[in-house]
């Protein structure tokens, strides 16, 4: 594995978005992974519709929260094509699902995996490099006050409450860390990103990690 790896360097990560006062992090992380893997596969990087997932993933609760696993399962089973963000813009509230015709172009997923990598974060680094950005669930209660730097304390594992997108890692410094894209806008953290120490399953980052395949 390289000492340092960042999918942003390969132009495979869309800009940081802002979920606003809507508990839709689960949809942002899933859609973020899909649009990245789509770009890694050779397509142009384009922002796909988070609102489509918020509105249409019926097993989840839209702005009241949801599960990344359920969302990915729904996308896999229905073969629902995600349209672009401009065709189905984000509203920060749950609305009625808008359907598009079968002939309408979009991105569908073929499969996904979800694993617990606790104690195996090196293998998780391998998955990131091999498959693309990873969807993960973390305990982000203390992130309310985060300004920047590498998180090493103040959050637990197995009490996860927030979905994020892992886009890279860096092991070249004194503290190896994950590079994580959040969906709280660019004014939060390190221009919308948060760094989490690798090893020790900090914030439960390795508890439930998904990779998607198109």
């Amino acid at each position: 594995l390289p000492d340092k790896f960042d999918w942003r360097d390969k132009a495979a990560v869309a800009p940081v978005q802002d979920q606003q006062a809507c508990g839709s992090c689960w949809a942002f992380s899933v859609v973020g992974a899909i649009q990245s893997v789509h770009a890694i596969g050779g397509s142009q990087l384009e922002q796909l519709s988070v609102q489509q997932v918020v509105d249409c993933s019926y097993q989840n609760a839209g702005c009241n929260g949801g599960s990344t696993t359920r969302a990915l399962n729904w996308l896999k089973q229905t073969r629902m094509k995600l349209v672009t963000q401009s065709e189905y813009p984000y509203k920060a509230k749950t609305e009625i699902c808008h359907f598009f015709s079968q002939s309408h172009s979009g991105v569908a997923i073929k499969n996904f995996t979800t694993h617990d990598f606790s104690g195996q974060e090196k293998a998780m680094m391998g998955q990131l490099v091999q498959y693309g950005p990873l969807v993960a669930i973390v305990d982000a209660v203390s992130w309310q006050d985060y300004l920047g730097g590498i998180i090493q304390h103040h959050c637990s594992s197995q009490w996860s409450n927030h979905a994020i997108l892992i886009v890279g890692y860096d092991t070249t410094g004194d503290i190896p860390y994950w590079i994580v894209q959040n969906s709280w806008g660019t004014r939060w953290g390190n221009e919308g990103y948060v760094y989490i120490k690798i090893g020790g399953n900090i914030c439960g980052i390795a508890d439930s990690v998904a990779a998607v395949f198109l």
Partner: protein
Amino acid sequence: AFRKQFHRTYEVSSEEFSRRHLSFQRATIRHTYLNSFSTETQSAKYGINQFSDLSQEEFRDLYLGAVYERAPLFSGLSVKE
């Protein structure tokens, strides 16, 4: 300064201001605690941001919307992989 920086429109004399002010004060107490753990330059820093006038309950309700589902333990790469 906080209201100006984060474009808050509530008035100083309002009930909402009192509530937000209390949340803000509690946040500053939290920051002292959170920053007391690490002194390394790379360590995380905690302080005033756009969420500082929210109570912890409000923050959880509005921004932490993921439901955790247990995942199978990663069992290593297959021979093929």
